């Protein structure tokens, strides 16, 4: 039964993801990629338990490498997404006084 519920979660999440991501403009497709990459490094929650549990040393080491890889993606992924998004700027709006001048000039 639990796996059916998981399937529900998966299908609904994929659906929400599809709807949300369709609305991301091509302008931001690269940040989108790095963002989803950082977010999917949530696999950390699995690898942390593995690295910290008491199974055997091999499991701890496998967990160690998994935590390492996922942390690289979390830290690097969110930082680089932020770095990119910081660069996307609108054209600076013209100074209000100047714009007004233009307007009145046009009217006259």
């Amino acid at each position, binding site marked *: 039964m639990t796996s059916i519920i998981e399937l529900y*979660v998966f299908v609904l999440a994929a659906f929400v993801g599809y709807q949300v991501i369709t609305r991301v403009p091509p302008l931001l497709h*690269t940040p989108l*990629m790095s963002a989803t990459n950082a977010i999917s490094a949530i696999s950390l929650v699995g690898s942390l*338990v593995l690295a910290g549990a*008491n199974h055997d040393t091999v499991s701890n080491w496998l*967990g160690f490498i*998994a935590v390492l890889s996922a942390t690289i993606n979390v830290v*690097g992924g969110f930082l680089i997404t932020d770095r990119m998004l910081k660069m*996307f700027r609108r054209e600076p709006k013209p100074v209000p006084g100047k714009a007004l001048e233009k307007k009145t000039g046009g009217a006259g």
Partner: protein
Amino acid sequence: MDVRELVIQAIYLASSVLFILGLKSLSHPDRARLGMQQAAMGMALAIVGTLFHHEIVRFDFIALALVLGTVVGYPLGMFVPMTAMPQRIAISHMFGALAATLVGVAEYRINEVGLPRSTMAALGFEVLFGALTVTGSFMAFGKLQEFITGRPVTYKGQNAVNITLFGVAIAMFLYLIYRPQTSVVFYAMIGLALLLGVFMVLPIGGADMPVVVSLLNSYAGLASSATGFAIQNNVLIICGALDGASGFLLSILMSKAMNRSFGNVLFGAFGSPPALAAGAQAKDLTVHSVSAEDAAMRMAYAGTVIVVPGYGMAVAQAQHVVRELADLLEKRGVTVKYAIHPVAGRMPGHMNVLLAEANVPYDRLYDMEQINSEFPQADVALVIGANDVVNPAARSDPSSPIYGMPILDVDKAKGAIVLKRSMNPGFAGIENQLFYAPNTSMLFGDAKSSLTRLVSEVKAL
């Protein structure tokens, strides 16, 4: 469910919501940054929450891995130049898939005896797609970083070999669901998947990288999601699904922008043979080259200039000089716009990021659909290192391998100035009729030095 477990689940739920809101914020550049910072908060919450998991009894491995991961991740986030973004993204898919695969292997080892079939199905899927993505992404990284040749590597019977290997891997996967405890098959399947990743990306050329990188993005997500199924963790399922959906959607968009199916990209390895035929045909056509001085003059006295950047701009790291030239032209009253083809460059959105880095305001960047109707009114279309995405053969020549691909209508502009290193055909190896058109002028040389010359010529006017 005890209180501790309840709190952890509540934290996971909160993180999932923050992640979805973060992705939603990406629908507009003004809100995106804040939204993603909130998503990062969600991630921090989830990590801290997980540390209270009852199975965690030792923190030495965890602490070391977190510290080391931060030490490696920080420079990968802060210092990788924007021009290296495609390979940076490719390698991060490798890390994501590696984490998922290793968790899968460990889960299998721990529960080898008496693994239920449903869990085995999830684990099998996880390691199959995870392992394939690990090597596939590494190959993509190598091709983009150019320590592996960017040209398609093909041999006779390649597709047959790949399809057979994939079939065998799937058969192993099905056998494992039937008999989960056969660990030999489990590890053999991982080995095969690693090999498949290499073979799959080997025949894919540089120009097709946007599709492959998106597809690997999707696989990495699906592998994470399968991890969630295997260890019964909903936040993992959700995030994996989000990543999978995003990668899948981008692959579809990229394929559409090249008018090709997935299958064609993966198994089609666009060849050099047709290029030879077209090359012979192009011999008796003449190319009109132009001096930097004349080119600068034409742009300086134009009403509208549309800049069409391509991979060549990224290679030459010319985005800052482009901006400088545009500033000079704008000061003279010229309207400058940028036309961005969805597959220009090596990954989705590559050109946008580069131009944003050079401080070009994003409202000057236009998608193909928005700008194509404006080319006929443009006095000059300045093509910087773009080739296939402006090749009119895509519209007119049914025998061309790129026939049917939507292109930027540069040939409809009143005049085009093309910056190009030499007359060698582009990555796809296809001859471009645009370069021989009577109203096209070629300015040969490295994009950056040509642009620098244009800048000084415009200044001198």
